[in-house]
């Protein structure tokens, strides 16, 4: 498929694997239908436009790459018309896929500590980073994953997170609400960050979640001593064309679909402080 077609024409994919994560959230694997040309492999942090025929198209981050025999995995929360339709699909059903689009999380450099900070469904776009880090531990110093969730029962990828701990990942979870049976932390993710950073000068923080959570995390990391260039956020805006033409996701002089979604705090901080931008 030519470059132009790959940008604009959805490639038919079939749902190969499917799992319900939470009441309103599912994870599914996608593979091109027989005869369809495979899309370029995505990099962690990028997104695809998923098209449910007859309903519409939405941008969805990649939550897994080339795992369990599936080229690409997405995690979707039902929050609107298209995502609700995506969550109703079953193995064997088809969707249209465009992409991959946008910027990716930077690769860790040897000796650098990787700090992953995820809030709610923000863990999905960060999951491929954790997978890659676990598979190549020699490529970075240490890996710490700090996760914020609404409650213990709303924790995404709970079983998998447990397995990360067994793989040597320092996993720290906090929830907003919990009953008396919860032995973990209760409170916002920012409170866990100071203790999670060993050496601010050689730590790279990857942050994804609601914007209030990302702003608070970035400010806390800055106060700990991380340079703004070492704090990467994945922004959520109203991406429609995904190629920087329609302007729906414009943020100041940037288009989140092309310049982002992964942007450094150094570049994005001034824009996040402006309302209605």
């Amino acid at each position, binding site marked *: 498929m030519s470059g132009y077609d790959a940008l604009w024409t959805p490639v038919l994919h079939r749902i190969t694997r499917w799992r319900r994560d939470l009441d*309103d959230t599912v994870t599914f694997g996608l593979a091109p239908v027989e005869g369809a040309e495979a899309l370029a492999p995505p990099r962690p942090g990028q*997104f695809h436009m998923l098209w449910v025929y007859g309903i*519409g198209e*939405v*941008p*969805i*981050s990649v939550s897994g790459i080339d795992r369990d025999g599936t080229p690409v995995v997405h*995690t979707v*929360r039902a*929050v*609107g*018309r*298209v*995502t609700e339709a995506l969550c109703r699909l079953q193995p064997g059903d088809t969707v249209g896929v465009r992409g991959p689009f946008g910027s990716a999380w930077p690769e860790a450099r040897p000796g650098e500590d990787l700090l992953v900070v995820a*809030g*709610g*469904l*923000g863990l*999905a*776009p960060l999951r491929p980073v954790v997978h890659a880090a676990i598979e190549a531990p020699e490529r970075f110093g240490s890996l710490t994953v700090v996760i*914020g*969730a*609404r409650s213990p029962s*709303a924790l995404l990828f709970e079983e998998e997170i447990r397995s990360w701990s067994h793989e040597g990942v320092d996993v720290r979870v*906090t929830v*907003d*609400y*919990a*009953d*008396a049976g*919860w*032995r*973990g*932390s*209760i*409170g*916002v993710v*920012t*409170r*866990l960050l*100071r*203790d999670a950073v060993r050496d601010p000068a050689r730590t790279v923080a990857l942050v*994804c*979640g*609601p914007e*209030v*959570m990302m702003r*608070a995390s970035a400010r806390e990391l800055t106060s700990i001593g991380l340079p703004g260039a070492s704090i990467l956020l994945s922004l*959520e805006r*109203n*991406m429609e064309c995904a190629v920087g033409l329609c302007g729906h996701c414009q943020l100041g002089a940037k288009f989140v679909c092309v310049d982002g*979604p992964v942007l450094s705090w150094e570049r994005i901080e001034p824009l996040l402080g402006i309302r209605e931008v």
Partner: protein
Amino acid sequence: MKSLPELLSEQPVFAGLSESDLVFLAGCCGLHHVPHGDVVFREGGPADRAFVVRSGRVVLELHEPGRGSFSVGTVEPGEVLGWSWLHAPYRWRTDALAVGDSSLFAFDAACLRQKLEADPRLGYAVVLRMAELATERLHATRVQLIDLYGPRSGDREDRR
């Protein structure tokens, strides 16, 4: 083995205090070990000690008769547990229970207040830190209240 002032100097709340200040404060302080599930203090009880969590975790709870206990937050290592010891009527406003075996720095509240009053420079520094912590905790509580990870209103589709 580290001395008590050395251990205190490692706690964020005391960062930047001089060695003599830490020795001065350590005169009111001891280590308090609390097994998992044990009560550190109860709502309404005398706030006669000030705590900083050294290891483990403490959960703060509010109890509603007929509905049980509600966990409203945890206090993690390096964090201050409670500030009711600082001002009248010196009564705790929540229950506090250890989650996992926990170790706390426990200051005699009357001794601590007396020392802070006797040395206004140090008193101001400590009270200012307590105010900063209270401000941070209040903001964190506000963020929790907006239920960031909860159901979304409207039908805007998004990327995650």
